[in-house]
């Protein structure tokens, strides 16, 4: 069974959300449209809807995270689910319990959904293949592989600002090699029909055969950013770098750091995005990160609506009869 198949139930609906790769354009649009509906909930006096009342969501984080875990938690709570946060370095696995024992234990607590973050690529997929049939798994980032809810909140942010995708030029800059965000984003951008996706990076930070993903490769910022509608800066993932891929951080900033001057070649209404956390002065200068083109904080708040949409979709897969309005 392929990664794509395991994500869908027998009726083609989303059961697990592990990667944006291989999902249909319609399904990705459904996520964005549902997120649009949920976005209004955060503006009300009571920021809650009762959709997932009685369901238990377990945040299973094997790797540290602030914004992903907290926005997943908030999303689940706004859907009225009960939330359990498990930071694995502090739990039984550090006492020698195996992963499958941990899963069985959580299943015995009648959990309905696992949100998984893990530093091994494929971890969420593995867990999805192991869990009881009624449990849905959402990938909150696995190794270098995928971070699909991040990609969808980025697409949501782009659509909010640009309206449509088909005419857009999107430049993704930086450490593509180690970035699960970049991989998931590239699949989402191409599936949703963006005009041109560019990656701008030194050769040492590009995966082999990156062109096969449908992107244009640039090594020079000024050429890669020319007339771009969206500039997406990636975090330099120093914790994942095992060898000297860079001459120095200063040199990196000089060549690939986003400055006002380099941004000037993009379109006047360009938006600047970053998945966070930001390394100020390494991949982006503060005046750009906090400047008028930046939508970085909007990305965070959109993360709640998008994660609500995905959670509601995987939990409510039984929509086959159009119930009459009663």
């Amino acid at each position, binding site marked *: 069974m392929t990664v794509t198949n395991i994500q869908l139930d027998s009726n083609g609906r989303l059961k697990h959300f592990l990667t944006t790769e291989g999902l249909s354009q319609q399904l990705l649009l459904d996520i964005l449209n549902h997120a649009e509906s949920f976005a209004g909930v955060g503006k009300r006096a009571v920021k809650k809807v*009762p*959709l997932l009342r009685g369901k238990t969501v377990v945040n299973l984080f094997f790797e540290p995270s602030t914004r992903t875990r907290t926005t997943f938690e908030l999303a689940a709570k706004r859907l009225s689910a009960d939330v359990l946060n498990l930071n694995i370095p502090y739990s039984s696995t550090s006492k020698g319990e195996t992963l499958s024992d941990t899963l069985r234990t959580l299943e015995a607590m009648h959990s309905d959904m696992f949100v998984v973050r893990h530093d091994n690529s494929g971890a969420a997929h593995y867990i999805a293949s192991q869990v009881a049939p009624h449990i849905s798994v959402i990938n909150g980032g696995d190794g270098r592989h995928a971070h699909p809810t991040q990609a969808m909140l980025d697409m949501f942010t782009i659509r909010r600002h640009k309206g449509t995708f088909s005419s857009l030029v999107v430049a993704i800059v930086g450490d593509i090699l180690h970035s699960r965000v970049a991989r998931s984003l590239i699949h989402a951008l191409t599936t949703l029909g963006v005009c041109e996706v560019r990656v701008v990076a030194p050769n040492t930070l590009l995966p082999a055969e990156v062109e096969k993903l449908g992107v244009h490769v640039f090594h020079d910022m000024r050429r890669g950013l020319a007339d771009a509608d969206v500039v997406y800066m990636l975090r330099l993932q120093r914790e994942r770098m095992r060898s000297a891929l860079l001459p120095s951080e200063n040199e990196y900033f000089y060549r690939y750091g986003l400055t006002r001057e380099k941004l000037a070649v993009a379109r006047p209404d360009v938006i600047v995005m970053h998945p966070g956390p930001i390394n100020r002065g390494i991949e982006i200068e503060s005046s750009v990160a906090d400047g008028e083109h930046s939508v970085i904080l909007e990305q965070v708040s959109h993360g709640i609506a998008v994660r609500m949409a995905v959670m509601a979709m995987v939990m409510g897969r039984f929509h086959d009869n159009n119930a009459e309005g009663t």
Partner: protein
Amino acid sequence: MINEDIEGLLEQIALDLKSLLQAQLRTDPVMIGIHTGGIWVAAYLHKKLHLADPLGELNIAFYRDDFSHIGIHPRVTPSNLPFDVDNRHIILVDDVLYTGRTIRAALNEIFDYGRPASVTLVVLLERSGRELPIQANIIGKSMTLNADEHVKLTGPEPLALVIKKSE
């Protein structure tokens, strides 16, 4: 299709509603229509009553009690209440009152926005088959239908009531 003068029903509802509001001394009410048919009915009444605040629109998809059976609706137009509901007299409008579950959901959602002073329920048509203790204050027309018969308001132009038998 039921051969019914919808326009005439709406006019009668508007008259009844005006006199009810006068009798109750409820001034400056706000109106909320329930998506989709209720909004069509509410739009007519809202205009007729010259209400000061814009019409509110409620989509109860996130409050349905059958989510675990039928899942999330493919496209949900978000609710939009362009006024503060706290201490306001609310006129809640729907097209058809049947089991009462939609109104239960609508009341829950309204109370998530605030605490209204009162809620008055107006429906174009009420039919038999209530499952909850909910009744409308103003009714355009009442019908007794079998459980396998479904009535639906089509519109918005022209508005018509359609009865279908389920197979």
